[in-house]
């Protein structure tokens, strides 16, 4: 398992294991923590409070930070406890403590490919018109974040963590508490959904113009 985990470290972690000064945490990890909280709690105010509680708790305990994991993973670990407190306060079960199983069927995936016809695409993807121009347009970023918002939470979580925040393979598995195989399946499903969503909400309109 160790070798597999090491191999999926396809890119270096953006944070050092040495740790930075507490004053820099907000700049370095604030948005990542916020995304993590928001994609679970689905409430901006609650997510902001959770980031604050997490950083304050980290401040009190940062001498305990052993440097076994990256600083971000450590902070997300604290955030997870804060999230558990959050659900407890609301008197609700945490909605996603059992991570998405790779064996679990995803209806979208079932629908995308035609099992009766050799698992071909039902609607074959075709090239997008001028994708590079999209990156220059403010509206495109709105469409993209709108699409990320529509992902089921486990997928959104995995995708945001790995792709937006650059927490790679083994670290991401630790944070999300999933196996590498499950992580790959979640990322794949997220990509299938995002490409479909962007096609509908962005590229379909581009080609008509």
């Amino acid at each position, binding site marked *: 398992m160790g070798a597999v985990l090491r191999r999926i470290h396809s890119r270096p972690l953006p944070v050092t294991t040495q740790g930075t000064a507490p004053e820099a945490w907000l700049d370095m990890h604030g*948005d990542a923590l916020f995304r993590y909280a928001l994609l679970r709690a689905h409430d901006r105010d609650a997510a902001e409070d959770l980031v604050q509680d997490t950083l304050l708790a980290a401040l009190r305990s940062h001498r305990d930070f052993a440097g076994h994991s990256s600083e971000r993973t450590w902070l997300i670990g604290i955030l997870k406890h804060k999230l558990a407190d959050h659900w407890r306060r609301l008197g609700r079960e945490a909605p996603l403590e059992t991570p998405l199983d790779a064996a679990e069927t995803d209806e979208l995936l079932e629908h995308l490919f035609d099992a009766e016809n050799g698992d071909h695409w039902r609607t074959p993807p075709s090239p997008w018109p001028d994708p590079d121009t999209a990156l220059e347009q403010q509206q495109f970023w709105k469409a993209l974040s709108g699409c990320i918002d529509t992902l089921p939470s486990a997928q959104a979580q995995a995708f945001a963590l790995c792709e937006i925040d650059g927490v790679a393979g083994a670290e991401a598995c630790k944070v999300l508490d999933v196996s590498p195989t499950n992580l790959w399946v979640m990322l794949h499903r997220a990509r299938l959904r995002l490409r479909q969503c962007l096609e509908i909400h962005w590229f379909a309109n581009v080609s008509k113009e």
Partner: protein
Amino acid sequence: MLSCKETSLLVSQSLDRRLAWRERIALRMHLLVCGACRSFADQAAFLRTAVRRFGRRANAPEPLRLSQDARERIARELRDKQP
């Protein structure tokens, strides 16, 4: 020969891990003859570029970032509580 469903999964995994040489060859063979999967591969790569840039944008739309207000409030709180 891989199906499109299997191919799309490999395309995706090629972004997340190193494929075994067998997988790489099977993938290449399929992509050679399948335009739909080639489009998917391009789009998956585009998604990665877009999303990484999205994460780095200082003036990105706020939905997935801390608002300026929240940021200032938290910074103040951290300063006050600094031991």
